[in-house]
């Protein structure tokens, strides 16, 4: 593959991962108005699940007599499993699918945990609590070696090994984009349904929604469970991209703050906005990182900070000139406009014929 090809595939992969995460945040915040400042919790949770559980199970199934512990003898264990996966596409795919589904379930459980404060607290109190919950998970993983190798992390078996060589990156990209497509279609269907309308109603006026029969606590809980399940799949996919899991790979800047910026810049309350936001930010970031050294002679500080400065600037510009984001929310109808107008016309002619 040529360098531009590698660059492009890598770009698509990272954009895809962030689209998944920002779409999940858009469901929580953009539709339902739950300010999930603990996005990291679910993303890391999904990755940690993949680091902790599937490898152990695979060791148990594929070589029960080896006496190797998946975490303590991580290198040997992963080598052993990779040998199997290198020649067995079916086993690889089952392993991949099982891991993603498992991560989603783990994410759903974390979402349920996060809903405990989310149905009791509002505003800043909720934001801080969710932020703290995410940090707690990260700190636990970092300091508990038996879980996912502590600060060293673990390598995980590679379900794309049978693809092999250069095309592996392409296979990972295609897998991630497939997940993006599924999540996008699912969330679009939700948005164009009575549920999407109820969520937006709850976001706009919680007390009215409650008084008009919506069980707000339940809706918030379910939203967080679904949102966190999606984000956890994003975290799991990131692990498969790098074939490793480490608590140090996850932090609140990358996995909470960036998705927030993406959703706000792209436009909350619609999935295209989350897509555009993630696309623009990852691309910008990649170009800035790529051309960083060119700026070196011109800036009087370490160029590492340039990235933050420019992206922060972009955020401020968007908030000033397009506070609703690049793609503003539009009414999404459950029925087509034409159909609505037909019904309106029928009601009108009925009334006047009376």
């Amino acid at each position, binding site marked *: 593959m040529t360098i531009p090809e590698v660059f492009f595939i890598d770009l698509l992969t990272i954009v895809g991962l962030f689209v998944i995460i920002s779409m999940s945040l858009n469901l929580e915040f953009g539709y339902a108005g739950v300010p999930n400042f603990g996005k990291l919790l679910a993303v890391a949770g999904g990755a940690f699940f993949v680091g902790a559980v599937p490898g152990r199970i695979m060791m148990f199934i594929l070589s029960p007599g080896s006496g190797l512990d998946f975490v303590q003898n991580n290198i040997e264990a992963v080598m052993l499993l990779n040998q199997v996966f290198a020649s067995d596409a079916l086993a690889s795919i089952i392993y991949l699918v099982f891991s993603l589904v498992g991560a989603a379930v783990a994410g759903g459980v974390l979402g349920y945990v996060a809903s405990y404060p989310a149905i009791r607290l509002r505003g800043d109190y909720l934001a801080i609590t969710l932020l703290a919950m995410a940090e707690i998970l990260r700190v636990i993983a970092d300091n508990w070696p038996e879980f996912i190798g502590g600060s060293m992390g673990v390598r995980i078996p590679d379900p794309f090994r049978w693809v092999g060589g250069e095309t592996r990156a392409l296979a990972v990209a295609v897998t991630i984009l497939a997940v993006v497509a599924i999540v996008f279609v*699912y969330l679009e*269907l*939700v948005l164009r*349904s*009575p*549920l*999407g*309308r*109820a969520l*937006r*109603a709850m*976001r*706009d*006026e919680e*007390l*009215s*929604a*409650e*008084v*008009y*029969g*919506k*069980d*707000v606590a339940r809706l918030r809980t*379910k939203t967080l469970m*679904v949102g966190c399940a999606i984000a956890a799949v994003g975290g799991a996919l990131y692990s498969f991209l790098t074939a490793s899991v480490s608590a140090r790979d996850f932090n609140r800047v990358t996995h909470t703050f960036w998705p927030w910026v993406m959703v706000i810049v792209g436009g909350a*309350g619609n999935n295209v906005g989350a897509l555009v936001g993630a696309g623009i930010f990852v691309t910008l970031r990649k170009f800035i990182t790529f051309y960083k050294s060119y700026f070196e002679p011109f800036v009087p500080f370490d160029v590492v900070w340039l990235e933050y400065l420019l992206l922060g600037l972009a955020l401020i510009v968007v908030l000033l000139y397009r506070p609703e984001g690049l793609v503003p*929310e539009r*009414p999404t109808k*459950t*029925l087509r406009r034409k*159909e*609505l107008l037909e*019904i*309106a016309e*029928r*009601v*009108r002619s009925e*009334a006047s014929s009376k």
Partner: protein
Amino acid sequence: MLGSILRTRELVKSFGGVRAVDRVSIDVRQKSLTMLIGPNGSGKTTLINLVTGVYRPDHGKIFFDGTEITGYPPHEVFRLGVARTFQIPQPFRKLTVLENLLVTQPGNPGEGFIKSLRRGRWKKFEQESVEKAFRILRLLNLDHLWDQEAEKLSGGQMKLLEVGKTLMAGAKLLIMDEPIAGVNPALAHEIFETFTRLRDEIGITLFLVEHRLDIALRYTDYVYVMATGSIIAEGGPAEVVYDPKVIEAYLGE
């Protein structure tokens, strides 16, 4: 005579030192248009908030349609058949006028994270809801605004939208906090005529707070008068307005 659909017994609610509602017992008769009047700050809105589960009473009991609902959360009170409006309209701002109505239609089969995917199962319900919503919008002269975001409506239109939402909810008991404040007299009369039609034709009970007695009283079956948290008078509209206690409460403001 019909029984009462809503009963409260000795309801008390204090905010700090203020007894906003002080041992209030009322009986709202089924299929009646019952009014709650009283000077500003007499506790009318607080009483509505108690009945609909927005506040919990410090003391006392609430019964709706024979069941005790004291302490029920608002959405459960709604599910039993009580819909209400707010004195200060609280529309779903970003939703269109039509959507504001559709949201309040109870029993929607498309409101789950999996159910929402089964379009075939909720489409018919949705079409029927839309038709019902357009009828209500027509009645309230809001049909030309169906596609407007609710936040762009005028104050009077928002009031009407609130009324529309309770009609959409198909409740047995409609509780409205000043439904015609800011609405022009002609339309206000039309709305009250609709209320009486709902009462006579469908058997809906209305429990209304209203300051504009000139318009409202002639449609009213029964009146409760509140002052400083307590019921000071009750009866038919004609007797109540000449009750010296009532006149004093209003003049003594």
